[in-house]
C-alpha cells in the first residue's frame, strides 16, 4: 500500500485449495462433504497399523492442470515427504506433503486491477498435500473428531511477495478462484473451506527494496477478510515503523468480529516438522505423455474467455466479466447463444441481459444451481428467438420463462397453446385501430389540435382491446400513419 505516509506493503499469499477428486489423496475413500462423521474412512486414512498410502492419479493430473494454467514448470519428478506434528485430527502423526521437490514451480499469472491494468504475480510453487480431519471443540468436556476430511487432497499455491496492496491480494484470489473453478479441480467455496488463504505481510518505506520483518495472518475465511486483515496489518506495521519500532515476526489470527489480528503463537514455539521423504511412496514420475494429456484437456481460461466474449459477441468488458466470472454461467451463455436463430451483436446483448438478469433471478428464486437449471440453454434460446422476432413482448417472455421453468414445457409450445403469441396481423390491427379512433373522436380532435401526448392513450386502448397481445411497434406505426393522414386532411 503506497500510503500517503510513504510506506509500501509487501504481500505474499499461501492458498490451499481442496481438490474435487472422487476419492481421497492416498486411499479409496469418498471425498463427499457433509456425510455422517467418520463414515468416509478406512485403515489408510485412519492411520491404522500396517496401512499404506497409494497416490491418487486424478489428484496428480489436477496438480499438473493448475501448474499448466499458471505457467509453472511441471517437474517430471517430485517427492512426497512426511511433515510431523501431533494433533488428534492428524491420525498418522504426520501429514503427507511435498517440500523440497514440489510438482510445480516458477509460474506467473496476470491479475487485472480495477482500472483495467494488468500486473504479473509470480507463483513460487504448487505442491500436493493431504488435509487433516476436523476437531470439534464445542463440546464442554470432550473434543470430538471427524476424519471424513482427513486425507482429502489439497494443492498449496505459494506466491512470491509480488502483491503490494490488499486490493491486489483480493484480485489475485478472485483470479485464482476463477482458474481453479474453470479447471473444475476445486469448487472455490471459501466459506466451506475448500479455498483457504494465509497471508504474509511486511511494510517498508515506499520505493525501498529491503525486506522488513513479516507477519503471517491465518484464518482468512473470506475474500473480504483477506482485504480487511491486510489493511489492518499494514496500518499496524506502518504505525510501528513510524514510532521507530518494528513488528515481531509472528503468526496472527484474524478476528473477524473485533476486526483485528491476534497472535497465534510465540516465535519460541516455532514447530520443527522433521520433514523427510515419505518412504511408503515412490517419487511421482511424470512422462511427457501424461503432461500432454492434461494439457490437451485444459479448458479455455477465464481471462482468455472474457476477451473472446468481447471480441466475438461484441459485449462490453463489464458484461463479459460478469458472464465469465463463473465457468458454468459462461458455458450456459455460450450454449444459449449457439441456439439463437439470428446472431447479431444486439441479439448477443439480449442473451447476455437475459442470462445474467431474469434467468439468474429465476434460478435464485427456485434455489437451483446454474449447473442444474430447470430450463435448458436451448429452451432459453427458443424463448429469445420469439422475443427477437417480435412474436412475444418482453413482458410475455418473462411470464413464459416462469411457466417453462415450473412446468418444463417448451416456450414455443406454451405460446402456441395459450394463444399468447403477439398479434402481428396488420390487417386486423388496422381495422381495430380504425374502430378505436372512431370511438374516441373527441380525443382524435385534441390530437389533431396539437395535443400529441394523447397518442399514448390510443396505444393503451389498442393494447387493452387485445389484452396486451398486440405488437407494440406495429401498433405505433399503424396508428401514427392513420393519424398523420388525418392531420393532412385536417390542414
Amino acid at each position, binding site marked *: 500500500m503506497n500510503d500517503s505516509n510513504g510506506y509500501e506493503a509487501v504481500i505474499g499469499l499461501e492458498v490451499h485449495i481442496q481438490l474435487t477428486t472422487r476419492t481421497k489423496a492416498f486411499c479409496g475413500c469418498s471425498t463427499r462433504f457433509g456425510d455422517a462423521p467418520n463414515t468416509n474412512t478406512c*485403515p489408510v486414512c*485412519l*492411520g*491404522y*497399523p*500396517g*496401512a*499404506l*498410502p*497409494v*497416490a491418487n492419479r486424478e489428484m496428480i493430473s489436477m496438480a499438473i492442470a493448475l501448474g499448466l494454467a499458471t505457467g509453472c514448470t511441471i517437474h517430471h519428478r517430485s517427492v512426497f515427504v*512426511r511433515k*510431523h506434528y*501431533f*494433533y*488428534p485430527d492428524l*491420525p*498418522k*502423526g*504426520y501429514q503427507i506433503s511435498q517440500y523440497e521437490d514440489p510438482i510445480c514451480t516458477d509460474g506467473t499469472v496476470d491479475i487485472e486491477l480495477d482500472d483495467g491494468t494488468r500486473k504479473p504475480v509470480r507463483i513460487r510453487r504448487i505442491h500436493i498435500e493431504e488435509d487433516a480431519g476436523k476437531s470439534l471443540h464445542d463440546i464442554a468436556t470432550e*473434543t470430538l*473428531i471427524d476424519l471424513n476430511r482427513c486425507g482429502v487432497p489439497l494443492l498449496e499455491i505459494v506466491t512470491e511477495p509480488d502483491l503490494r496492496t490488499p486490493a491486489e491480494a483480493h484480485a489475485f484470489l478472485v483470479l485464482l478462484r476463477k482458474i481453479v473453478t474453470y479447471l473444475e479441480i476445486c469448487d472455490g467455496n471459501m466459506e466451506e473451506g475448500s479455498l483457504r488463504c494465509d497471508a504474509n505481510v511486511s511494510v517498508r518505506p515506499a520505493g525501498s527494496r529491503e525486506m522488513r520483518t513479516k507477519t503471517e495472518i491465518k484464518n482468512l475465511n473470506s475474500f473480504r477478510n483477506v482485504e480487511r486483515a491486510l489493511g489492518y496489518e499494514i496500518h499496524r506495521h506502518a504505525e510501528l515503523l513510524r514510532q521507530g519500532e518494528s513488528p515481531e515476526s509472528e503468526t496472527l489470527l484474524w478476528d473477524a468480529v473485533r476486526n483485528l489480528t491476534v497472535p497465534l503463537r510465540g516465535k519460541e514455539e516455532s514447530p*520443527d516438522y*522433521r*520433514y*523427510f521423504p515419505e*518412504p*511408503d*511412496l*515412490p517419487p511421482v514420475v511424470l512422462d511427457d505423455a501424461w503432461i500432454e494429456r492434461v494439457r490437451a484437456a485444459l479448458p479455455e481460461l477465464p481471462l482468455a474467455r472474457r476477451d473472446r466474449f468481447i471480441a466475438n459477441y461484441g459485449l462490453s468488458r463489464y458484461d463479459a466479466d460478469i458472464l465469465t466470472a463463473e465457468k458454468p454461467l459462461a458455458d450456459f451463455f455460450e450454449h444459449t447463444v449457439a441456439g439463437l436463430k439470428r446472431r447479431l451483436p444486439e441479439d448477443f446483448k439480449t442473451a447476455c441481459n437475459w442470462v445474467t438478469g431474469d434467468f439468474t433471478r429465476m434460478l435464485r428464486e427456485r434455489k437451483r444451481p446454474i449447473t442444474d437449471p430447470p430450463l435448458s440453454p436451448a429452451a432459453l434460446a427458443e424463448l429469445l428467438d420469439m422475443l427477437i422476432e417480435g412474436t412475444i413482448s418482453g413482458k410475455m417472455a418473462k411470464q413464459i420463462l416462469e411457466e417453462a421453468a415450473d412446468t418444463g414445457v417448451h416456450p414455443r409450445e406454451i405460446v402456441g397453446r395459450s394463444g399468447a403469441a403477439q398479434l402481428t396481423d396488420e390487417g386486423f390491427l388496422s381495422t381495430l385501430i380504425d374502430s378505436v379512433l372512431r370511438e374516441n373522436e373527441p380525443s382524435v380532435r385534441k390530437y389533431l389540435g396539437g395535443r400529441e401526448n394523447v397518442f399514448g392513450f390510443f396505444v393503451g386502448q389498442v393494447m387493452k382491446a387485445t389484452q396486451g397481445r398486440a405488437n407494440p411497434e406495429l401498433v405505433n406505426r399503424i396508428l401514427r400513419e392513420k393519424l398523420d393522414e388525418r392531420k393532412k386532411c385536417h390542414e
Partner: protein
Amino acid sequence: MRGYIALRPSLLSGEVRCERLVGDALDAARRNRDLNAFLEVYEDAVERAARVDAKIAEGTAGPLAGMIVALKDNLLMRGRKCTCASRILEGFESLYDATAVARLLAADAIVIGRTNMDEFAMGSSGEHSAFGPVLNPRDRRRVPGGSSSGAAAAVAAGIVHAALGSDTGGSVRQPAAFTGIVGVKPGYGRISRYGLVAFASSLDQIGTLTTTVADAALLLDVISGPDPFDATTDPEPATRVTDDLERPLGAVRVGLPREFIEERLDESVHEALERAKDALRTIGTSIQVVSLPHLRYTIPVYTVVAMAEASSNLARYDGVRYGLRRTAATHTELYERTRNEGFGPEVKRRILVGTYVLSAGYVDAYYRKAQQVRALIAREFTDAFRTVDILLGPTTPSPAFFRGERLHDPLTMYLSDVFTASANLAGVPAMHLPVMDDLEGLPIGVQLFAPMRGEGLMFRVASALERTLRQSGR
C-alpha cells in the same frame, strides 16, 4: 517336523489329515509353553483344518494346503489381535488381512497363532517384548535372536512348518541363525508390506522362516508379487523360485566381501564359513574375495535411517483411535501418558534417537549423511554383482548368546546386525542357511546375498549348498 514338502504326498493322499497336524501343532505349542514363542494360539484353527481336509479330498486344495504357519505379531489377520508385543496396541484387532497373509490363506495354509517378538521389531534377542522373553529351543538359557524371536523358536522347536516374520536389519536371518533354520529376506518390493506394521518402511520386508530351502521357496512364491495397496512393490510379476530349484547350477561366481572377514568373528563362525566355501567349491562355483568398502558403516547408517523412520511410523500410536489410552485433561497430556506407559524402553530409545536425527539443525549431519552413505553401499552391491553372481558372508558374529548378556549394552546388541543390515540398506535379497553345530551344539550358518530380483539363483545356490552339506554331514 521334517518340513512341509516332505509331508505333502501323505497329506494329498489323505494318509495324514490337516486336522491331526493342527492338533499336533497345538499340543506342541502347549508342551513348549516355556519358550514363550506364542502370544496367542488359535484353537479354532482346527475348524479351518477340517475345511482344508475337505478341499484336499475334493482335489481343490491350494499349493500350501496343510502347511502349519505362525505369524509374527506384527502381521495383520482380519479379526485377530495384533500387538507387536507392545502394551500400546493393547486390545487392538485387525480390520483386514495383510496382503501376504491373505495370499497365504488363499493357498490353504493354516495359521495357528501369533508369535512373540521384540517390541515393534526393535531388538536382536527376543528380550524386548512387553510379554516376556522368548527362549531358544536349542538351548533354553540362550536368546533365540530377534526380532522374529517367537517365529524362529516356533519353527525350530518343530511346532509349525513355517512362520512369516519381518526383517528390517536382520530380524528374520539372525534368529534363523541362532535357532538353526532357514531365514529369507527377499528383495525390497518383492512382498507387499500392506498389513505389516511398519518399523522402518524403507528397510522392512516380510521374510520366511522354515526348516528347508524348498519350503521357503514354496512359501515365497505364494506371497510374492505386485500389490496395488503397496506402492513400493516391484510392479513386475515376481519370477517363481520353486520351479528352478533343482536345476543344475552351471558356472556361478561367488564373492566374499573382504570387509566381512575383517570383522571380529567367533572361531566357530569362521569354521562355518570355511565349510560353506568347501561345499560351494564341491558344487562347482568359483569363490573370490571382493570389496565393498562402505560396508564398515553399515551399523551407524542403519541405526540412523531405521530410527528416523521408526520415530515417524510410531507417531500414530497416540491413544486417540485404538490401542492403549490413558485419559488426561489435555491432548498433549493424553499423548504423554499413553506413550510413556505404552512403549517399552528400547522403543522409547529409538523414537528419541530417530526424532533427534531428523530435527532441524541435525538432519543434515545425521539423516541426510546416512542416506548418502546408504546410496554408496547400494552402489557397491550393484558394482560387486557385476563381477560375482552371489555374495557369501557370515550371518552373525557369534552363535546365540546368553539371555541378559547384552540387554543393558545396546551398542553391542546393535552390532548383532553387522552382517545382515547391509542387505536392507541396499534392498537386495539375502538368506540365512544353517551349516553346522558348534562344540556346544549351537547352530551356525552362512548368509547368501543376491542382486535385486536375483532370488531365483540365490535359492538354487542355497538348495545345492543345503544338499551338499547334508550329504557331507552324514
